[in-house]
């Protein structure tokens, strides 16, 4: 049973109500909002301190050493790139599939993408030995000496892919924002009005403008999907191409990472939306149906991810190579990795997915919040378990096998990154509505229903 909220009788009622309810935070802000933002800002400041200390002292302050040269920071980088795959996944695929329930969900998801990606980019730079010289890492500007980046290096592919993805997703958001800027232009006063006036670019809402909005939505979705797939594939190749780390040198990495990213990303979006729903009173928009459908989607995604997880392990151990077995032994049986692995596989799959099979779990905000957070705990650990053990058990030269303990600095950075993303999402929610107004209004227009015998069937008008 879909529980459709009736927002009003006349168009005026509906639209003004949507404007009122979805612009609350933009037009009027509650105190608890500032309290939360303030707290997050504190955490971010702390992490900032840690970063400063690291840049000043050198990478020595981390727990990294030979042969574990990559640790928490890269794990976190991969994790955030993963989260960033939610936005496009949801808004693009669901828009192409013309899923009605996507309407309230899209923008929040895209915003998560943008900020997750921005945060992700920081880490490889901070993580490098001399962050202040990373300019020539990505940009071929040194014509004077004719020295350029090495096209063959995955670490050059990364910046290309991520900049492309970041630019596209920002544009994706901005284009969809124009009509909503117009709404705010008409609602605000004074300076704000002037600013929104500029941002809205003189939008009036003619049929042609709307048409192009919608066409652009489809077109950009179709264009951005291949980018989104490529980004995490390239991130996965940072590891995959490394032939000397047998645990990494697996052909399945690209799709495995992508689907894993979608798994964690969509979960993150659900988490974020449930929290925002509580914070901004979105009861009429983020309904049980929304998270129910998201839950169903998650079951499929999670299971697909699990399939890749299984073949990744199966096809790496079936040749029974010493180094490979040593690695897996460490991953599965040696503390602390054994505990991490257990936590990961339980929280990443075996707790949430069976729960999602129950309708009343999928339709309960509390449970979806819990399960989706669990998933992301699991997926963070998954990245860690892919990156670190592989390095700790590299090749047969067991003389320099080792293990890794993160330092407090790295831990602070990781925590900070979470605070940073959340803070940014909250701050942006002060200037733009995180639920696309016009999309919801369109949904209201297209809503319809008809009777079959005694049953009333909820329906929607379809232009195509």
């Amino acid at each position, binding site marked *: 049973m879909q529980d459709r909220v009736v927002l009003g009788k*006349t*168009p*005026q*009622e509906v*639209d*003004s109500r949507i*404007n009122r309810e979805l612009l609350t935070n933009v037009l009027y802000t509650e105190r608890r909002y500032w309290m939360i933002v303030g707290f997050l800002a504190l955490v971010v400041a702390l992490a900032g301190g840690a970063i400063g200390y690291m840049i000043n002292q050198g990478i020595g302050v981390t727990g990294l050493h030979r042969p574990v040269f990559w640790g928490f920071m890269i794990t976190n980088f991969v994790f955030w790139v993963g989260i960033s795959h939610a936005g496009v996944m949801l808004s693009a695929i669901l828009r192409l599939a013309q899923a009605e329930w996507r309407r309230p969900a899209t923008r929040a998801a895209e915003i998560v993408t943008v900020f997750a990606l921005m945060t992700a980019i920081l880490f490889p730079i901070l993580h490098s030995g001399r962050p202040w010289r990373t300019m020539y890492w990505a940009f*071929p500007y040194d014509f004077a000496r*004719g*020295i*350029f*980046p*090495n*096209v*063959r290096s995955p670490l*050059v*592919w990364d910046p*290309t*892919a991520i900049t*492309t993805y970041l*630019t*596209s997703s920002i*544009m994706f958001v*901005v*284009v969809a924002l*124009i009509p909503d800027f*117009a*709404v705010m232009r*008409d609602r605000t006063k004074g300076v704000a009005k002037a600013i929104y006036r500029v941002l809205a*670019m*003189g*939008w*009036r*809402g*003619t*049929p*042609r*403008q*709307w*048409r*192009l*909005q*919608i*066409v*652009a939505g489809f*077109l*950009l979705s179709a*264009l951005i999907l*291949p*980018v989104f797939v*490529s980004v995490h594939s390239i991130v996965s190749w940072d590891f995959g191409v490394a032939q000397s780390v047998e645990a990494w040198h697996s052909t399945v990495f690209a799709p495995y990472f992508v689907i894993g990213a979608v798994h964690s990303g969509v979960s993150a979006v659900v988490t974020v939306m449930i929290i925002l729903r509580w914070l901004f009173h979105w009861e009429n928009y983020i309904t049980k149906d929304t998270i129910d459908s998201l839950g169903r989607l998650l079951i499929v995604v999670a299971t697909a991810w699990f399939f890749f997880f299984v073949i990744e392990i199966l096809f790496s151990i079936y040749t029974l190579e010493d180094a490979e077995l040593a690695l897996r032994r460490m991953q599965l049986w040696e503390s602390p990795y054994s505990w991490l692995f257990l936590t990961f596989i339980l929280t990443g799959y075996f707790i949430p997915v069976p729960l999602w099979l129950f309708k009343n779990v999928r339709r309960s905000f509390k449970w979806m919040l819990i399960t989706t957070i669990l998933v992301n705990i699991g997926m963070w650990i998954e990245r860690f378990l892919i990156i670190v053990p592989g390095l700790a058990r590299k090749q047969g030269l067991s003389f320099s096998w080792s293990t890794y303990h993160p330092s407090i600095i790295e831990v602070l950075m990781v925590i900070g990154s979470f605070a940073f993303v959340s803070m940014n999402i909250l701050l942006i929610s002060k200037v733009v509505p995180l639920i696309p*107004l*016009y999309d919801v*209004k*369109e949904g*209201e*227009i*297209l809503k319809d229903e008809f009777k079959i015998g005694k049953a009333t069937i909820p329906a929607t*008008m379809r*232009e195509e």
Partner: protein
Amino acid sequence: MAKKQVLGVFKTADNAVMAVDRLNEAGFTNKDWTVLTGSPYPEGAFGEWMPKHRLYAFPFFGAIVGFTVAILVTAGTSVANPLVTGGKPIIAVPAMAVIVYEGTMLGAILMTIIGVIFESRLPRPLMGLYDERITEGYVGIDLNCPEDRINAAEMVMRQSGAVDVKHQK
């Protein structure tokens, strides 16, 4: 003679449609008026005039540009700085392919954005006649009519239930 804008604001889409029909009877064509709505209506819901847009051309153009630039940059830099690494060829096609791909997509997407803004005739610094109630769910009919017929047009709109009608001074 000089044309002036007349804007009628209607409570419901039905009234707007009624107004549109009457205007057409009164000798205006659907090229003279356009509809202003606060949210997208199905195409052709008002029998409005919808000139074809060329949005689809933009991404292809962008893709071609992006592709060429990316090829030049990747091939150029590898040739300009020909250092052997790991026994790989100087022009390493699979590696270049990755970057060229990203370049192509970036070009396509950026051009699409430009296309959207250009094709929807934005930015439009002088908005012309507008009413803030439109983003509240009211429907506006923006008629472009010769000065001597302004009153007639306003009359028509009022008759078909416009809550408010204004025109350029």
